[in-house]
């Protein structure tokens, strides 16, 4: 475990609701998103995509397209001659430009760059692809069976027992104790099977980039991403170039939620630019985003829980089967680790399965793998509470994890906030509010690991005493505001005196992707340490000015002052004073910090939801929704509340209507926002966020990640509310009206 970084302190800026620095640009349209950049002589790039779910590419004839007016480059897989060093990157290359086979509806098989959009689109139609259509599979349970159409050969890991299709790539197991002995002690055992559909992150901004590669093998790439250092490293590996020759700049980002933690267009745009010698801009349509970016896994899960009459869980098992599209992705294992994480269990066994199908490769989606696992586990917990006639919060408090509990995935928890969220939920007026006819209330818990990771921050003192901070993580959750706040807090200067920017890959050290709810924690930690570094330098300058020892200087309220009467009597030197004279006292002053941050601090949440079901149509209305989450120190409460509300909203969509619908032919039937139904504003009540601030010992201010946990409880919470309102247990998501009405009628 990381050393204890936390020190209790009175905050002046952290915890306030200062104006966001990106607000004006975003509301006036001045902000530059992925598609907003242009370059002289720029071409427009488009992809040709497979219309088949699974097909061998026998040949591709691009000659007619290449001869068309305005067409400057056509690329296929044959142009990607370099073999990436990393296996994961090979899969990414196979995903962004199909090799021998097209593995899903929408898989890119060729791309064109031309001097107009219409010329490029006309050229796509002139490319002749000879496909041999192969049998396909899109359902996880079907894909696991021997004899299922197989996507790959020889990729199955040794962990997979015999008797499964080659589509089953990996099996992992977690737990402790003796589940057979545990079930033998149970008075009641509930065993249920669940299914969840694949959903999309639903970010508003489609993927877009502008690539420019010169024949000196130096390149610039501007793109919409959650991690431009990842884009640089991945693209350099695919292109066979040195990463230092590729500079990547992140655009503003119109949502990511995990879906922009990989690349789709970027290597294709670079190859088109390399081949044409011109800058190439590529933008996905919504249809392309739905068909060929990275939705989440669909799942099939079995849960068995045994309890004594007093509610004590004696044993639990879970089998988590996840399909993550056409390449390996660790999702089932995460489900197997997270599903039972809120509980203190003596006997537990969980198994996670990673399965490939003819769908686009899953990308991360906010706490990847965890919401579906929580749906299954928390549904069974609710059924047990109902059977025992027990308050479902009491059942969870009785079995809930706390400091010292051996977690479902192995380690022993430090101080955690699960029970605090449960107690807050129970004490909240929502829990005891009356319900009407056809209404039901659900509760659910959720867990997410959170992450630290590689981080670099630079903090520059300007001659006029203003401060610039460079971070290397695209700001998707308010990090520019949070970093400025933490730097201002540490330096003891006003928030307005600091401007934070997201620096490009050539301007800062390595940074991991904006994921794992890591940025406010890890970049915040590096920001505080960079500020402390600058403070040390400034203290040294003051000491030299006064002719006293640096150890005899302290930093208070934005100024250096002698530490006590023995140090001498000098008027304080403010940051501005020191900045104004820094040229004469030793030159420019900057602080920086680089670390692979540990001590992220796990996070728990409890949600309550009231629903009303129309028993004649199966329509569900969300009446009231309250989120309780351990957020650690909330640096900017507006952003934290937004994260809790946003997680709930995405969960509401996932629970009620969102789903990837595939036809008999394996093609996606609803590639757009008309028939892929994310909630609209009028579908939602005001979602009340309740922030609990249990300090994370791994951060100087007690900060822990908040972005992902909020999407873990909703699927279960809403399913429990709907099941209680409709009087029938719903075990399949989404609970769309046709499905719910059929269940009500069958009851």
């Amino acid at each position, binding site marked *: 475990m990381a050393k204890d970084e936390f020190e209790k302190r009175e905050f002046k800026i952290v915890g306030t609701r200062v104006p966001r620095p990106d607000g004006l640009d975003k509301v006036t349209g001045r902000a530059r998103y992925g598609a907003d950049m242009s370059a002289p002589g720029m071409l427009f790039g488009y992809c040709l995509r497979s219309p088949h779910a699974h097909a061998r590419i026998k040949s591709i004839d691009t000659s007619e397209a290449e001869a068309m007016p305005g067409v400057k480059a056509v690329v296929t897989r044959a142009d990607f001659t370099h073999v990436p060093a990393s296996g994961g990157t090979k899969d990414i290359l196979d995903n962004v430009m199909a090799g021998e086979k097209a593995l899903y509806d929408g898989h890119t098989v060729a791309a064109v760059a031309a001097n107009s959009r219409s010329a490029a689109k006309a050229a796509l139609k002139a490319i002749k692809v000879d496909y041999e259509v192969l049998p396909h599979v899109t359902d996880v349970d079907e894909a696991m069976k021997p004899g299922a159409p197989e996507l790959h050969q020889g990729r199955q890991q040794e962990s997979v027992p015999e008797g499964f299709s080659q589509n089953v790539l990996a099996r992992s197991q977690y737990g402790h104790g003796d589940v057979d002995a545990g079930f033998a002690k149970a008075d009641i055992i509930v065993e249920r099977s669940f299914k969840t559909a694949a959903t999309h992150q639903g970010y508003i901004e489609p993927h877009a980039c502008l690539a420019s590669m010169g024949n000196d093998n130096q390149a610039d790439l501007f793109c919409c991403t959650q991690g431009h250092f990842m884009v640089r490293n991945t693209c350099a590996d695919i292109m066979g170039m040195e990463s230092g020759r590729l500079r990547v700049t992140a655009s503003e980002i119109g949502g990511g939620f995990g879906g922009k933690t990989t690349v789709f267009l970027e290597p294709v745009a670079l190859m088109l630019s390399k081949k044409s010698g011109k800058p190439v801009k590529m933008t996905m349509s919504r249809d392309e985003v739905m068909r060929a970016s990275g939705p989440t896994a669909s799942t099939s899960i079995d849960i068995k829980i045994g309890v004594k009459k007093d509610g004590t869980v004696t044993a639990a098992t879970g089998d988590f089967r996840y399909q993550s599209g056409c390449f390996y992705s660790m999702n089932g294992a995460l489900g197997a680790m997270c599903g039972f994480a809120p509980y203190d269990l003596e006997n537990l066994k969980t198994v996670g399965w990673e399965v490939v199908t003819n769908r686009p490769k899953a990308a991360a989606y906010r706490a990847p793998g965890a919401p579906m696992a929580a749906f299954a586990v928390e549904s069974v917990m609710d059924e047990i509470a109902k059977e025992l006639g027990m308050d479902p919060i009491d059942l969870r408090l009785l079995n809930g994890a706390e400091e010292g509990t051996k977690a479902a995935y192995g380690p022993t928890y430090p101080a955690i906030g699960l029970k605090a969220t449960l107690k807050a939920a129970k004490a909240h007026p929502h829990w005891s509010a009356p319900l009407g006819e056809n209404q039901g209330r659900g509760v659910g818990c959720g867990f997410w690991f959170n992450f630290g990771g590689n981080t670099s921050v630079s903090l520059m003192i300007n001659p006029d005493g203003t401060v610039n901070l460079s971070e290397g993580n695209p700001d998707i959750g308010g990090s520019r505001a949070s970093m400025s706040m933490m730097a201002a807090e540490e330096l003891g200067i006003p928030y307005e005196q600091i401007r934070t920017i997201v620096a490009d890959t050539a301007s800062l050290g390595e940074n991991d992707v904006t994921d794992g709810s890591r940025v406010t924690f890890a970049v915040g930690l590096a920001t505080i340490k960079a500020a402390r570094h600058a403070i040390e330098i400034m203290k040294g300058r003051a000491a030299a000015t006064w002719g006293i020892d640096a150890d005899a200087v302290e930093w208070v309220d934005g100024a250096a002052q002698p530490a006590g009467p023995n140090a001498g009597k000098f008027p304080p030197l403010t940051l501005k004073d020191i900045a104004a004279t820094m040229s004469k006292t030793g030159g420019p002053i900057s602080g920086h910090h680089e670390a692979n941050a540990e001590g992220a601090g796990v996070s728990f949440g409890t949600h309550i939801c009231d629903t009303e079901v129309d028993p*004649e149509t199966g*329509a569900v209305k969300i009446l009231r929704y309250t989120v309780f989450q351990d957020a650690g120190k909330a640096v900017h409460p507006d952003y934290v509340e937004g994260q809790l509300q946003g997680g709930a909203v995405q969960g509401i969509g996932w629970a*009620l209507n969102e789903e990837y619908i595939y036809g008999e032919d394996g093609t996606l039937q609803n590639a757009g926002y008309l028939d892929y*139904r994310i909630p609209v504003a009028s579908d939602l009540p005001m979602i009340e966020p309740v922030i609990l601030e249990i300090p994370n010992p791994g951060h100087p201010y007690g900060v822990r990640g908040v972005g992902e946990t909020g999407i873990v409880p909703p699927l279960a919470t809403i399913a429990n509310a709907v099941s209680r309102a409709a009087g029938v247990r719903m075990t399949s998501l989404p609970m769309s009206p046709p499905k719910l009405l*059929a269940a009500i009628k069958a009851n």
Partner: protein
Amino acid sequence: MKFQTPHSVEDAVAILVADPDARVLAGGTDLLVRLRAGHMTPSAVVDIKRINGMRDITSENGGWRIGAGVACAEMGEHAALKADYPGVVEGAELIGSTQVQGRCTVVGNLCNAGPAGDSVPALVAAGATVRVAGPNGTRDVDVIDIPTAPGKTSLKEGEFVTSVFLPARAANSSDAYLRFIPRTEMDIAVVGCAVNLTLDDAGVVTAASMSLGAVGPKVKQVDASALVGSTCDDAAVEALAAAATAAATPIDDKRGTIAFRKDVSGVLAKRAARAAYTRAKGAST
């Protein structure tokens, strides 16, 4: 692609006759989306909104003539039209979003010939007609005869719809339109149902019509005689619901199952009948 703005019906017909690949633009809320998605590539777009009368709602023989360029939101702001045909207006005001309703038109919704068009069932239940202009002059056609199949209309080459006409209202008449969508707005009907009623002074139904959307290749007129002679009591309404369920011929698709759509056809028939009845009674007090 050419963009043309004729100022007379004759000029518009001449353009359409000369160029069979031209497409008519009224509100454009379907056409422009299809153009951008690359689903159609017309040789010309003919904007009819500048033709005299296209944007007017006028009283005619006690009924209402609504120009082909009238936006659905404008219908919602027309108090007298709304008082006569609240069901027609509520259907028109369910299309798309608030922004879309500022541009979209009922005639466009009709000629788009989507089986789920929200403004069409109430027009059919109201016995509305449209005026069609073409190379051989004008003709009036029942609304239900315009769509023939998904995306197909009975309009001939060179023809376009210039207006829709809602007949004069008998006393104690009203209508209602309800649709089922999985969300609360910005969606497409999984089932749509309009009921149009006339009562006598005692509150007994003397005439009833019903129409269903999204449960067949085109809008359906369904026998609503179960309500005639009743005061919209439970038995009559249940009989109407059974008629709706029986008449619905939906398909299984991404938006709903056959069983669901047949069930919900009945549910909406009941609810729309009760809403129309309440309104018709209210109109007589």
